[in-house]
């Protein structure tokens, strides 16, 4: 069984009167089981030079029956070192938040289609704040991958 572990440590000596030292670790399992997740899109690293909204997992079909009740985890990191630069992260066209330089997220992803009657897929998208170039990293660790079928139409 594939064993993948995700851990986080949140620390601060001066946010509160008491020190903050919070740790959490979990093994990534298939939904509702203790069987490890065994598929991944691989770690992507890209230099985005436009503020265009990008679907970072185009190879996965969101809203597909293959993903229903499945477990998927998304990691995204803004590798910029300029504190003013950020990426806007959305799901179903709805803004989750902004990742500023060095920030990352780790979140579950249901890949569900939008419920807001706008026919948006459950895409996870990013949009850089500047067009001068930003490095990003991302990956998805999942189960039940379904890929788009071949489409050679050019128009």
């Amino acid at each position, binding site marked *: 069984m594939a064993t993948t572990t995700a851990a*986080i440590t949140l620390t601060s000596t001066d946010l509160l009167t008491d020190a903050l030292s*919070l740790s959490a670790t979990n093994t990534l399992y298939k939904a509702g089981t203790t069987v490890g997740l065994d598929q991944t899109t691989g770690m992507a690293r890209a230099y985005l030079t436009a503020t265009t909204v990008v679907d970072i997992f185009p190879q996965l079909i969101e809203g597909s029956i293959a993903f229903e009740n499945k477990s998927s985890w998304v*990691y995204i990191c803004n590798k910029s070192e300029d504190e*003013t630069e950020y990426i806007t*992260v959305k*799901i179903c066209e709805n803004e989750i938040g902004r990742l500023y330089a060095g920030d*990352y*997220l*780790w979140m579950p992803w249901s890949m569900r289609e939008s419920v807001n009657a706008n026919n948006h897929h459950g895409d996870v998208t990013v949009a850089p704040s500047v067009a001068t170039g930003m490095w990003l990293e991302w990956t998805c660790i999942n189960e039940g991958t379904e890929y788009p079928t071949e489409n050679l139409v050019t128009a």
Partner: protein
Amino acid sequence: MAITAELTLTSAAGDLTTDALALSTSTSLTKAGLSTAISQTAGLARKTTESTSQYTLFDGDAYSDGAHKIYLKNTESTAGLYFVIEINSEQMGKLYAGDWAFFPWEANADTNDIKITPSTSASHTLEYMLFYE
């Protein structure tokens, strides 16, 4: 003032993939576009639910835009128990037993609430924390 969030993702060679996964990244939680640390928190909280009703964890109307960060953890140990996480009524994902998540929250709309729905009416406990500016 400083708050540090360190993430590690690991998997041995030949497990998830042929090569080992050993990702480690750390960030200091700062205010939007600044190097100034976030200085406010809603505190580390726990909520135990005993129905499948939806609960609002964080109300988008109660916070201004910002580089807020949210930490969530399902503290249950029974594999099938989960919380559905929604943002602005869109399903983000499900947190199964032992799972945790850490993500930014823009709170850019009054409707950008963070809501949870337990999978069953059995006792489910979620731990959560908000860092905000």
